[in-house]
């Protein structure tokens, strides 16, 4: 009797293994559209399909249960894939999980709810994350100051900040102060601040930053690019003083501002100096600025990703999944972070070699994590105000954009409730 049951059980198991088929979405150089691959993975997660992220395996590939709908979607979106039989999948998993290789499997469980912090007003520059999410067809919601102050962050797992100025200096676009978009931006910010009982925009922004910080502390995921990264920490450090020049808020900076900076409040940077010159298009010396003239050339400017242990350092490994180890540089209002200002507990993910400059970093605060990424647009070396948005269909394999999209899947690897 027992023997019969065992045979039957083995039969069922083996049959199911033979029938079970998966799809491997390779993320190495064979992939026809790396950016859309993230979108399809997100699409699969939304449909509660089983998705595994094979860290460091063929550029950080994805393994998804095969269905006709998935295959159709992969074809329609132009994402290349391989159909695997049950035994091939088992063999693949075994290879990836073996101790001999620096690879591992991470199960992605639920699609993160994504918020992009940006004004409704159209500003004459593009937002790399919005471009990436739109191209990859990953759903997101736009939020801004009022939403943050009203507690909207509770509804999201992942928040993105891009070309924002949390110091209340309107991006330090002093040269554009007479243009309609700048006037409108300033006016809207002032109206919002006054409506919330703040005398200055810098005070409103500080409150927003503090709420986002609480959100991260409670388990949220924060991703910030360009000036959204350093101005976030500058605002936190200057919570007890006034670092905004008269040209932006109508009164001079606090003469004791430097001594009143509180670096204990910041996420990633310490000991930096804000720049008080209203006409200088720079917030602080955290940003190393554009590369030196001899390197200010898309052909020679690049940064390199660090390699982490896929089995023991899964967070940095997920954030650095790429099909190349060296990525071409790109300039922003904040380009690279000066290494000496990076706090020691922060993990450096990528840096410009030999220049003491960090491009990409990650750290934890409370229950959550933050990731800062320098530069403005990974596929537009120097993006100027008024430039046309980058057409990502021409940059389907962009490693720079891949780093952004690694971040949106990273929260899916962790199933937990927000504590905010």
């Amino acid at each position, binding site marked *: 009797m027992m023997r019969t049951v065992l045979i039957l059980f083995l039969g069922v198991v083996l049959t199911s293994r033979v029938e079970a088929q998966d799809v491997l979405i390779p993320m190495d150089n064979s992939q*026809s559209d790396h950016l859309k691959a993230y979108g399809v993975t997100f699409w699969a997660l939304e449909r509660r399909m089983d998705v595994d992220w094979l860290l460091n395996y063929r550029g950080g590939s994805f393994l998804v249960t095969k269905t006709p709908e998935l295959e*159709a979607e992969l*074809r*329609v*979106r*132009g994402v*290349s894939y391989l159909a695997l039989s049950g035994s091939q999948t088992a063999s693949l998993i075994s290879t990836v999980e073996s101790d001999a290789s620096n690879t591992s499997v991470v199960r992605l469980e639920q699609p993160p709810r994504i918020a992009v912090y940006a004004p409704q007003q159209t500003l004459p520059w593009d937002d790399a994350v919005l471009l990436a999410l*739109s*191209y990859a*067809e990953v759903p997101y919601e736009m939020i801004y100051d009022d939403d943050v102050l009203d507690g909207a962050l509770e509804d999201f797992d992942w928040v993105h900040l891009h070309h924002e100025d949390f110091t209340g200096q309107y991006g330090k676009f002093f040269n554009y102060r007479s*243009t*309609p978009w700048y*006037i*409108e931006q300033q*006016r809207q910010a*002032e109206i919002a601040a006054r409506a919330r009982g703040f*005398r200055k925009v810098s005070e409103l922004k500080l409150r927003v930053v503090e709420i986002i910080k609480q959100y991260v502390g409670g388990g949220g995921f924060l991703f910030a690019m360009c000036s959204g990264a350093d101005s976030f920490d500058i605002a936190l450090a200057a919570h007890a003083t*006034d670092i905004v020049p008269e040209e932006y808020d*109508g*009164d*001079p900076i*606090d*003469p004791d501002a430097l001594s009143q900076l509180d670096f204990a409040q910041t996420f990633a940077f310490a000991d930096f100096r804000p720049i008080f010159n209203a006409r200088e298009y720079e917030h602080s010396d955290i940003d190393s600025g554009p590369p030196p003239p001899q390197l200010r050339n898309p052909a020679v400017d690049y940064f390199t990703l660090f390699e982490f242990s896929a089995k023991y350092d899964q967070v940095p490994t997920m954030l650095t999944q790429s099909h190349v180890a060296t990525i071409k540089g790109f300039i922003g209002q904040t380009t690279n972070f000066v290494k000496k200002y990076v706090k020691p507990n922060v993990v450096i993910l990528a840096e410009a070699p030999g220049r003491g400059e960090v491009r990409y970093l990650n750290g934890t605060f409370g229950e959550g994590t933050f990731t800062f990424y320098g530069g403005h647009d990974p596929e537009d070396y120097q993006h100027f105000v008024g430039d046309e948005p980058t057409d990502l*269909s021409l940059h389907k394999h962009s490693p720079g954009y891949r780093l952004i999209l690694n971040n949106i899947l990273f929260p899916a690897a962790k199933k937990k409730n927000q504590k905010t």
Partner: protein
Amino acid sequence: MYPMKISSRTVGYVLGIVFGAFCCSVAPAQEVDSSQVGRFQLAESFMRAAQYQRAISLLEGLYDDSPETHVFYERLREAYESVKRYDAAIALVDKKINQETSPTIYVADKARLQFLKGDEATARLTWQSAINTDPSSSSVYLLVYRSLMQVRLFDFSIEILEKGREYLGNNSLFQTDLAQLYNLTSQHDKATIEYLDLLSVNQNQLNYVRSQMGPFLTTPESLEKSITVVQAGVATEPLNRSYREFLAWLLVEDDQFRPALDVYRAIDRLEREEGKMLFAFAGVASDGGAYDVALEAYDEVLRRYPLGPAAPDALRGLGLMQEKWAETLGEAVFDERGQRLPRNHFDEALDTYQRFLIDYPQHPMFPDVLRRIGLLHQDVFYDYTSAYTVLTEVIGRYPQTIVADQAAYDLGRLAVMENRLEDARLEFSRLLTRLRTGDLADLSRYELAMLHFYKGEFDTAQGFTEAMQENTSTDVANDAISMKVMLIENRGPDSLDVPLKSFSRTKLLSRQRQWDTALHQLDDLLAAFGSHPLADDISFDRAELLAKTAEPEKAIAAYLELSLFFPGSFLADRSLFGAATIQYKVLGDNTAAIATFERILKEYPGSLLITATREQIRRLRGDELL
């Protein structure tokens, strides 16, 4: 280049002179001794070095020594502000207020300092008290307004200036300042009222008004508000041209072409412009795709001012627009079976051009209009006799002109259509010899290559294409390259190139719109040379001709056959695409079309049509396309 060397002593002298001059100009009675000059210079340098405390110590001493010296007061107040010692700054200003007989400017400054200190309620009272110092003076309101603008209190600025107007009983005061403030606070209707008042006094300010309003009119709501106000203005002052032009400009900005036409019509009549305003507007409306409105504008110019200066250009413009309209709508004169369709915009264009010839025989654009008539006959109405007559007339009456060259090229094409291949060769050869370079020369060269191809003179045809492909900047270079590839790949198997020669004849028949004959010959060719490398080209042309001759089911079958029999052909993916397009466009079968498009994705993942295929699938299944 090196900087000029200047000694520190010279700098001292210069500064002393400047300082002295400044002090004299500010307060002639003040006396400043040399030690004060030195201390002041030192304080200035401390200020520049952001050593405010040290500067304040010096400036306080200087001010105590000479409180009537304005520059000491000014710098000391600045220094206090720099270190946010607002109470000290306010006390200093209070002293100044007590000294002055007309202290309004200092009272306003005191209010600003109180605002910066964070005491907004007191600041507002102080600004009000500044007004109260002399409420009958318009300059007092402006002083307070400028003080308020320093701290960007736009709403309060508006309140102050409006009160000033009311008190002084003069509604024309502070017009541009208020208009700017209204725009800054999104009160575009009020801003528009201010600018209308400005225009009622000086109509020449219209360009200034447009430049001021333009940057703020970025939303339909803002435009709507302004339009409503200007419409009321026009009703009140119907004879003010600038009002009407302002209104018309706003309406065009808001894409309201029909109401804009009414406004331009009125301007044209009132100002006796004899159609010039309407003609200009018709062009704008046509460019904006508002063809019906443009048509009305052109018609009105021609009906009301047939002898006016704008009439000839309006008539030609009308013809051009009708052609554009027909192309936008995808109109044709004959259907796929060759039956005449009802009159459409091409007929209108032809009539318009013919009217032009009758009405304006001496007009400089006469030759161009004549050639356009020839082109319509040739390419739209397929009336080759009329086309020949007209194009020959262009060449005969206007020799040695660009239009004559273009007409000669058209005549060459006409000869091909009429199967007068030798005439065509002569026409293109003469044109090529005369022009040698340029777009028309390249087009002629390509036509010569095609003629040799039709005649089966493949070596000569290939020679022409090789000459052309070097100039890749021209549009026909791609066509030349395609022809060369076809010639290289499909010759043989015998030395007479029989299949290719037969195929070239079907190409000529297709061009000459002899589709049935071409179809028969293609069928014969396929039967005879089914395994020749040309077979896929033949099948593809056959499917295309079936589609042209309103045989959608047969065309789909032919396209699908090609992908079945010649799966490795470079035309296989195009065939599937063609079949799917007919399935959804002609038969309305979206499901079948999606299935066919999906075959391209599965079977030809490297196809050049892959992006278009994905887009079509997503469109057909109702995805939201970015």
